[in-house]
């Protein structure tokens, strides 16, 4: 099924706080999106009010097509004015959704998948794990292990949603209040030697600092890794050039790529981790 990119007026079906400061919003959209690829995102904006001005990008966390409509879920954390406004949305409110946008994760590679999530970065990985499992008939059983990091026990999100799809979910908290004490990349670093390089692929999403640390861990390991990057976005469709991320080009030089268009998912080795 082909993907249609549209700006739609959707209706909020539910909007609940699932962990401290973290919410899941479910939105019903008219028409069908076609298959969203995990890692793709939407530009989201409440349907009324003039502030904030711009839409905000959120990874699609789940998608259900039901006859004539599409339901999507977004998992978000309140960090500023836009997400604070979003948390006030109630059932029946109208919202604007543009998408699905960007390049998602490659889905078919690897017989073993490692997911590395920092905070709300878990959102596209939940979608990835579920879809990977659903497609298993065709491609044989996949082993999925997820590493999930958060500041503390209270702000862990998505674990209960990952568990049904994963063989194992490992948790790291900065303060050790649940699981490993430390960052999720430290937790993963301890395990990395046990994985069989050629069979596994890594899919990661989280703050840049986490992804950068992950790049360090994987450096020279020969494990294929894709990361979903975040940058501030104005348009989400490749027009404003606001969401530039620095990449290494084939010839050894550097250049910028648009997170919203060439990304948000990039091959880890393409990113220039030294600088924005």
């Amino acid at each position, binding site marked *: 099924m082909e993907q249609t990119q549209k*700006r739609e007026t959707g209706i909020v079906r539910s909007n609940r706080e699932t962990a401290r400061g973290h919410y899941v919003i479910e939105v019903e959209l008219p028409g069908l999106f076609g298959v969203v690829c995990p890692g793709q995102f939407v530009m989201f904006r409440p349907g009324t009010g003039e502030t904030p001005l711009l839409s905000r990008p959120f990874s699609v966390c789940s998608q259900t097509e039901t006859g004539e409509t599409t339901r999507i879920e977004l998992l978000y954390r309140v960090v500023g004015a836009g997400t604070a406004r979003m948390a006030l949305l109630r059932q029946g409110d109208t919202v604007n959704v543009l998408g699905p946008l960007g390049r998602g994760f490659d889905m078919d590679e690897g017989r073993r998948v490692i997911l590395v999530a920092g905070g709300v970065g878990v959102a596209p990985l939940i979608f990835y794990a579920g879809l990977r499992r659903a497609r298993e008939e065709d491609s044989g059983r996949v082993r999925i292990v997820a590493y999930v990091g958060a500041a503390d026990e209270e702000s862990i999100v998505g674990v209960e949603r990952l568990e049904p799809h994963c063989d194992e979910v490992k948790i790291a908290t900065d303060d050790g209040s649940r699981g490993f004490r430390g960052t999720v990349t430290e937790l993963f670093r301890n395990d990395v030697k046990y994985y069989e390089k050629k069979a596994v692929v890594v899919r990661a999403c989280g703050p840049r600092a986490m992804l950068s640390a992950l790049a360090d861990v994987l450096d020279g390991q020969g494990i294929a890794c894709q990361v979903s990057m975040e940058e501030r976005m104005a*348009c989400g469709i490749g027009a404003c050039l*606001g969401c530039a991320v620095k990449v290494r080009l084939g010839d050894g030089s550097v*250049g910028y790529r648009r997170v919203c268009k060439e990304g948000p998912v990039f091959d880890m080795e393409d990113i220039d981790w030294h600088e*924005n």
Partner: protein
Amino acid sequence: MKTDGAERPNMAVSIGRLVLKNPVITASGTFGYGEEFAPYLDLDRLGGMVIKGISEKPRMGNPSPRIVETPSGLLNAIGLENVGVDAFITEKAPFLETLDTTVIANIFGESVDEYARVAGKLTGVKCVDALEVNISCPNVKRGGMDIGADPEQAAEVTRAVRQATNLPVIVKLTPNVTDITAVARRVEAAGADALSLINTLRGMSVDIYTARPRLANVTGGLSGPAIRPLAVLMVWETVQAVSIPVIGMGGIMNACDALEFLIAGARAIEVGTANFVNPAAVLDIIDGIERHLGDACVDDINDIIGTLDCRRK
């Protein structure tokens, strides 16, 4: 002239030699090379489209973060990233040629000569109907100030471009000046066919938790509804100061905003930041203006341009 509302009003306007099917143009740097918006609207409906600023050589642009939202505004420091004039001609122009709308190339340079060379290269490119000269570039000589802030330099660039092309030349003015009409008059005298204004206003934003600027480039240009009152005034003053047509812009989000500029005397308007909020914003604006004309029983858009009545009641 009044109409009974049965016929659709005339929406065509002319900017010198340039005839636009309606007065709504997408602003440079906010509509990519047009392609990006094709999934969301029929580009042929546009009055015109100004292409992202083009320089002689490709430019990489600034580090991220390049944008930050401010109250009713957008602060950007893209750094004029673009593919360069040659790649524009080979890679981007072919798509634009397929469109039935007026295409205006926005050009800039770091020197007067670069402006002239880019203008020269774009002259004769089939899809390019006019040039918009962006003189809001930081100029090495005057350290940080825009070329366009100095009437003398602005006029010099205008003359150079005028000589390098036979296309209509629209000079885009910067609002970061004490008196925009002084620059406008000099640019008119130097041979511009039209003026467009305003470009962004210089601004900055500070992250108080890190004590660092929110933009990697420290400063940026402010666009969006926040600047509209400043833009409307500058357009109104400029319209009175020159006799060439003026294209107005700055914070136009909907048809009502567009009409403010048209009533103040702008012959056409450009829409920038609004394209980011809704990629089909320009269509809503075109339809909204047409509806307003119908409601007001005006059968020609030109009959409302410059009708601002400032007499005391």
